[in-house]
Structure formats: C-alpha cells, structure tokens
C-alpha cells in the first residue's frame, strides 16, 4: 500500500525543525552517473548507526554525555569480513538491539554478499563505513570526514556507495 502521508510520529518535533531549515537549491545537487552497470561495480556501504569494529576506538559518547548538543562527526572503517557480532552497534538515539540481532535490518552486509554471489553487483568492497548519525554541527562531517571516506573509497576503486541512514 503506497504511503502518501509523511508523519512525524517517529520524532516528535521533526516537522517543526524541518520547517526552520533553509532548503538547498536542487539545481545545485551534485550528480555522478553510475560509470558502468551495477553488475560490474565495486560497491560499498555507509551506515549512520555508529558501527565500529570491536577493539577499534568507540565514537566519543563521553563527550556527547557531557555536551548533549554535540555528536561525534568522525567515521569508522569496517572490513567486509567482519561478522554480525564482530562489531558494536552504538548509536545512542535509536534502539540498536534489532541490529544486534540481525544487522540486515539496517546494515545489509549479508544481502550485498548475496548480491555479489548472484552477480547483481560486481563485488562488495573490502572496506565498509559507518558514521554516528547524531551530528548537530555537521560542518566537520562535510569538511573533514566525508573527504576522508571518499579518499579511502577512491583508493579501493569503489564505483558506488549505498548510504543506509538509521
């Protein structure tokens, strides 16, 4: 059944916050065509669920607890070989227990592994990426983190990235 009504029940003041924001100019939206059929592309995934490899540095939740209007704008790189339980799903603003049970609810590593086997994508890249999506001041994300992720993706010959926000 098509959903035509965008409600704000999942986030009580979302509609008001959205109304206060200045829209971007759609005419300025960047555009990069897919360079070849998806079945030939090296594909990576980007999550906003605050995923990091166990043993890697956590996102900085101590500072967020001390400064609730601040969120860690950095990213983590996760090897594609990391399994369901090899990572932490750490975002404080959502219930990550579903991800902890089955990552494919928002981190479709197994599904894209199947896509690779089926030839739907050329391959799943060796490195996958996560940020933690609560970033009220997103300038560091745009100016520092995104270029670092892009540099890493280019070094690995990534053709396309699927972003799965939570």
């Amino acid at each position, binding site marked *: *059944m*098509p*959903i035509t009504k*965008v*409600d704000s*029940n*999942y*986030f009580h003041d*979302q509609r008001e916050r*959205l109304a206060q*924001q200045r*829209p*971007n*100019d*759609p005419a*300025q*939206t*960047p*555009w*990069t065509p*897919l360079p070849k*059929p*998806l079945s030939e592309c090296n594909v990576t995934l980007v999550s906003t*669920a605050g995923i990091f490899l166990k043993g890697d540095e956590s996102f900085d939740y101590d500072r*967020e*607890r001390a400064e*609730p*209007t601040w969120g860690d704008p950095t990213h983590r790189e996760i090897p594609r070989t990391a399994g369901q339980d090899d990572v932490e799903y750490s*975002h*404080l*603003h*959502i*219930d*990550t227990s*579903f*991800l902890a*049970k*089955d990552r*494919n*609810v*928002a981190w*479709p590593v*197994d*599904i*894209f592994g199947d*896509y690779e086997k089926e030839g*739907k*994508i050329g391959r799943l890249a060796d490195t996958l990426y996560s940020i933690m999506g*609560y970033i009220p001041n997103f300038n560091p994300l745009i100016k520092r983190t995104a270029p670092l992720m892009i540099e890493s993706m280019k070094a690995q010959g990534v053709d*396309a990235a*699927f972003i*799965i*926000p*939570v």
Partner: protein
Amino acid sequence: MTEKVAVSRAAFVQYPFGRQLGEVGDREGQRKITDAMADLIESAEGPNTYVHLPYEWPEPPDKAKWRPDILAPMGLKRMREAEETRKAAAK
C-alpha cells in the same frame, strides 16, 4: 528532510528508525528495500531522483519501538528542562 537537503538519489520508506530495511529475520522483506535501492542507482537519470517505496510497516508508528531503553543525552537534557519549566510554572 532528505528531499529538502537535495541529494542525487534517494529511496524512502516509512519504517522505524533502526530498522529501515525491515524486521529482524525478514530477509525477503529486507531485500525488497535493497533491491529498490539497487534498481534506483541504475535507473536514476539525473539529480534529485526520489522514489517512495510502496511498503508499510505492520505496526502503527506509536507501537513501533525505535527509542533506546536508556534516553540519549539530548533526550535527558530535554526532559530535565521540561521538568524545570514545569516546576517554575508551578511556583
């Protein structure tokens, strides 16, 4: 919000935060969403290409759990501020 920010391509579905692709264990349902994402990246011919997927979460929004059991720091801050406002108004 994504449309307002203006991105090159996006597929939208009204699923709860943290389960954007579907329920735990529902690989068939999850794949419907990822298949749509894969189709979109191949079919989009220009920027601001948005598709609204025709799937509906089985629970009403107020019954679908997405909040963590422990409130996030901003949630705690808002709760404290609301309590202070309530106390100030009661004086």
